[in-house]
């Protein structure tokens, strides 16, 4: 056992993280004391290191622009956010778009549509389209992560808006990028997926439009979103890649593309923390670690 290089590597890795974890937490605390907060340094930190869960929400709020960089404006702006939330909700209730039995995620969707000026007439509301479903999936995941409805709505809205603005143009290229890295890591699996016709049908929208919402449990998901929120959509490719690599044997045994898709849309939920950890390692290996001093 002691000779198992993989095991040795892993335990030394965890030791390192355990030791470094304390140092990292301290350096984040120093960053969070800055006024104004330095968004670039916060992003770099969050790209390089895991966010301690006690600071995660605060970092997300600042990086997503829900709160401004100046800490002494936070109380006032927090008040604005709250007013805006209640104003919109009240109007939707009066116009009968929502009532007390409407699921929160649907309420958030209507609020978002109202703000984006795409709210359909009440009588013309139909089943959610693909884009609405993406929004709802992200909302359901965010709702699992955050208890407060005001924070939850604002973070969903800012996340979705930032994702489209920053990465809208890159998203269509991610499947090609996945194919490229898969050819480097496991050409045999790539060939199998191509030959069976599964490659074209992989759950790209679940992976790259919903950012794994509904695919990974929240504890793993938020570690992926840390990287997305701090400025990388490439991480999504490596999480997808690591899922494929982790279930390689299984996937090589499935010959029908529908079977592949069904499996990938419902991956086992036990192993996902390790998958995300390995995905982040692979991502750092191929894309480098941001080098700015923290």
């Amino acid at each position, binding site marked *: 056992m002691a000779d198992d290089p993989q095991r040795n590597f892993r335990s030394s890795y965890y030791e390192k993280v355990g030791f470094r974890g304390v140092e990292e937490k301290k350096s984040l605390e120093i960053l969070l004391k800055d006024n*104004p907060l330095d968004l670039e340094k916060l992003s770099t930190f969050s790209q390089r290191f895991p966010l301690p869960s006690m600071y995660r929400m605060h970092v997300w709020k600042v990086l997503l622009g829900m709160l*401004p960089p*100046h800490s002494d404006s936070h109380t006032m*702006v927090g008040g604005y956010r709250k007013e805006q939330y209640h*104003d*919109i909700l009240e109007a939707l209730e009066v*116009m009968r778009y929502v009532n007390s039995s409407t699921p929160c995620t649907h309420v958030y969707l209507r609020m978002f549509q109202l703000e984006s*000026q795409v709210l359909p007439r009440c009588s013309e509301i139909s089943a959610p389209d693909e884009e609405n479903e993406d929004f709802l999936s992200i909302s359901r995941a965010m709702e699992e992560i955050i208890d407060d409805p005001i924070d939850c709505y604002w973070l969903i809205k800012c996340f979705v808006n930032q994702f489209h603005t920053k990465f809208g143009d890159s998203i269509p290229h991610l499947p090609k990028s996945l194919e490229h890295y898969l050819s480097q890591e496991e050409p045999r699996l790539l060939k199998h997926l191509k030959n069976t016709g599964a490659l074209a049908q992989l759950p790209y929208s679940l992976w790259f439009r919903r950012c794994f919402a509904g695919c990974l449990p929240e504890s793993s998901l938020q570690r992926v979103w840390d990287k997305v929120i701090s400025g990388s959509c490439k991480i999504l490719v490596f999480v997808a890649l690591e899922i494929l690599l982790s279930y390689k044997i299984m996937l090589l045994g499935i010959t029908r593309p529908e079977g592949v898709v069904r499996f990938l849309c419902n991956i086992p939920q036990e192993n996902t923390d390790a998958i995300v950890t390995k995905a982040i390692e692979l991502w750092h290996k191929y894309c480098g670690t941001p080098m700015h001093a923290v």
Partner: protein
Amino acid sequence: FLEDVKCQAKAELQDSDSRYQAQRRITQLLQTELLQLYSRVETEAPAGT
């Protein structure tokens, strides 16, 4: 330092204005809804009386 004060003020103004913008969208929606409802009431009224 002066730049910093300006930046802070600008951010606060934007965040305050965002509430106003939301209110404007709400007003527009309410107006559309009201207009439609009025025209419905007026078409139906003769039958009701």
